[in-house]
C-alpha cells in the first residue's frame, strides 16, 4: 500500500519536473523552493543521453545559446552559484547499469566540458562518481570511484591537466532523483562535475 503512495508522489514530481523543464527558456528568476529539495535536477539536469531538444521553439530567436549559461558572467558568479545545476556549464555524464564506460553521448559532453575548462583555465574541479541504489553500499563506493576515474581520464586525454581534476566517489549515498525505478536510476548513475576553485 505504502509503495503505491510513493509512486504516486514520484509521478507527481516527474510531472512537476517536466513542467519546469518546459519553462526552461525563461530566465531563472526564482528557483523553485523547497519542492526542489530532494527531487534534484529539474531545470539543468539533462535527461540521459541523447538529450532531447524541445520541439519547435515558440519564437524564432537568432543564435540561441546551446551549451552556455544563457549569457551569465561566470567570472562574476560565486562558485556555489556556478555549481547549481541550472547554472553550471559543466554537464554531467550518465552511465549504463553497473558500468563505468564512457559512451559516445558522454564523450560529446566531456568534450564540451573540456572546452569550458580550457576557456576558464584556472578552474579546478572535482569529478564525483555516483551510482543508483541497486547494489550494496560498499560495492557502489568502488563503482563510483571507477566512474569518476573514467571521466577524469577522458578529460585528461582531451588535454586537461591532472592537477585540475580531483575525484571522489559518493557511491549510492547521494541520489539526485529519490525515485526507485529506472527513470530515477538513470539520473543517478553519473559523473558530476563540481567547481572547487577558480
Amino acid at each position: 500500500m505504502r509503495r503505491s503512495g510513493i509512486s504516486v508522489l514520484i509521478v507527481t514530481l516527474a510531472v512537476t519536473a517536466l513542467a519546469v523543464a518546459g519553462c526552461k527558456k525563461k530566465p531563472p528568476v526564482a528557483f523553485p523552493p523547497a519542492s526542489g529539495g530532494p527531487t534534484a535536477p529539474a531545470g539543468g539536469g539533462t535527461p540521459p543521453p541523447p538529450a532531447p531538444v524541445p520541439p519547435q521553439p515558440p519564437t524564432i530567436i537568432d543564435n540561441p545559446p546551446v551549451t552556455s549559461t544563457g549569457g551569465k558572467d561566470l567570472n562574476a558568479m560565486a562558485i556555489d552559484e556556478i555549481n547549481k545545476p541550472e547554472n553550471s556549464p559543466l554537464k554531467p555524464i550518465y552511465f549504463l547499469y553497473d558500468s563505468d564506460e564512457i559512451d559516445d553521448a558522454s564523450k560529446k559532453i566531456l568534450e564540451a566540458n573540456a572546452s569550458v575548462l580550457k576557456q576558464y583555465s584556472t578552474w579546478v574541479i572535482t569529478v564525483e562518481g555516483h551510482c543508483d541504489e541497486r547494489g550494496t553500499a560498499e560495492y557502489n563506493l568502488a563503482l563510483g570511484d571507477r566512474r569518476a576515474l573514467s571521466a577524469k581520464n577522458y578529460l585528461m586525454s582531451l588535454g586537461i591537466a591532472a592537477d585540475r581534476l580531483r575525484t571522489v566517489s559518493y557511491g549510492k549515498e547521494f541520489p539526485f532523483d529519490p525515485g526507485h525505478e529506472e527513470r530515477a536510476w538513470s539520473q543517478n548513475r553519473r559523473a558530476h562535475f563540481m567547481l572547487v576553485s577558480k
Partner: protein
Amino acid sequence: MRRLQVRTTVIGAAVAALATIAVPVATRDVVATEQQTAPAQQAELSVTLSSTTKRTVLAVADFVVPSGDADAAALSKLLADVLWADFDFEREYSLVPRAKTASLGAPARPEDVAQRPDWGSSGAGADAVVIGTVTRSGKEFSVKIDIVGAPGSPAAGQIGFSSLYEHCALANPRFCSHSIADDIHKKKRGLDGVARTRLAFSSDRDSARMSTRTGVPVSGKEIYVSDYDGANQQRFTFNNSLNIHSRWSPNGNQIVFTSYQTSFPDIYVANLAEAGRGLRRPGNGNDRVQNNQAAWSPDGSKIAYVSNRSGNYDIWIANADGGDARNLTNHPAADQNPTWSPNGQQIAFTSDRATGSTPQLYLIGISGQAIERLIDQRVDRPTWSTLGFIAFTSGSNFGHDISLLDLVSRQVTVLTDGKGDNGSPAVSPSGRHIAFTTSRWGKDQIAIVDRRGSDVRQITNTGNNTYPSWQPIR
C-alpha cells in the same frame, strides 16, 4: 564479597564545539554483590536452571518498589520489561510473556513465591520467578535479584540465585537491568551477554544539506549510537556531511568512521567519553589521499583501512595512531572491506581482481603473505566473528542477503531469506547475533538476526539507517 566492575557510560546531548561530537557522560559503575546470606546453590535447582535439554522457563515479576516513592514506582515495570527482553534476546531461557503475568500481582518477597501456584506449572507455567526488589538512595538505587523455584518445579521455593546490584542511576535505569542480565547470563550460563553493548550506525534522520556541496540539494548522514536493543538512540556526529563506516575500538571507548566533511573521505577517530577531545585523523587524508572503511586490530594496536593513495583502492595497515602505514594488498584492482581475524594475524577483504567488477572474498596475512581466495561467489562487507565464521553480504545486484561462511567447512549459510535488500552485516561480540541493514520495512533500517537466521528484530524506525557496527564487550 565479589565486585563486578561494569563500565558504564551514557551518551549526553552536549555538542562539543571542537570535535562536533556528542559525548557520553560517565556514570558510576553498577556493582553486583554476591549475597553472603544466600543459601548455597541447591543441587536440584542448579540442574533445572542450567539444563541443556530443556530451557528453564523464567517469569519476570514487576520489581517491588518502596511504597510512596514516585521515582521508584516508575521503575517497577520498566526494569522488569528490560530484564525480560534481555533474557529473551539471548534465548538461554524460555520466558513467560510479561502480559501473561501482568494481572497476577508480583510476589512481595522471594519466600512468597512458594505460596503462588498461579505463577507455577499450574498457572503461568514458570519453572522459576525472577524477583527484583528496589531500594532507593538519592539519585541512585539498588536492586536485589532473587530467582526462586516456582510451585510445581522440582526446586519450588528454593532460591537459586541471589545478588545485589548497587549504584544503578535513576537517569539510566535500563542500564541497570542490562547489567543484571549480563551478570546472570555470565554466572548461570557462562555466557558473555551483550545487554550492555551499543550499536553505532549512520542515519539521515536529521539530514541537512551537506555544507560542502551547496550547489546540489543532497542530504547528509550522521553517526548515531544506541543501546544494543535500539533504546537511547543519540546523535554522535554533527558535521552536516556524509558519515559512514563506523567501527568500534576493541576497548569500546572509541569509534572510527569515514567522514566527507572536507569534501573528501577520510577516517576519523572519536572518543566516546571525552568531551571535545580525541578527534584524530590517522589516515592523514586530503583530496589526493582518500581513506575509508577503517577497522581496528583485535588488540587495538593497529588499524586496517582502504586508501587510494597508490592510485586505486588498496588495503593499508598502520599503527593505531596512523604511523608506519604500508600498502598490504597493492593491486590495481579495487580492494575493500578489511576485517581482522580474531587472532590479529590475518585480514579478510574483498577484491574484484579476478572479475574486473564483482567483489570476492580474499584472505591475506598481515605481512602480505599467503593471499588466498576463500570462495568464488560475490561477497561484500565481510565481518569476521569470534565463532569461526565470516558474515557477509551475498547476492547479485538485484537482491542481497546476509550469509555466513563457516571457515572450517567452507559452507555458506544464507541467514536472511530474501525479504527486502540486506547488507552491511556487523557481528555481535559474542558472535551469536548479526546486525545488518535491511529495506524489508520500506526505508533502510537496522535489524538484528540471530546466527541461525531467526528472531529478526527491528532496531531503528526513523529515516534511513545504514552501516551498523557493534560495540565490543568492555
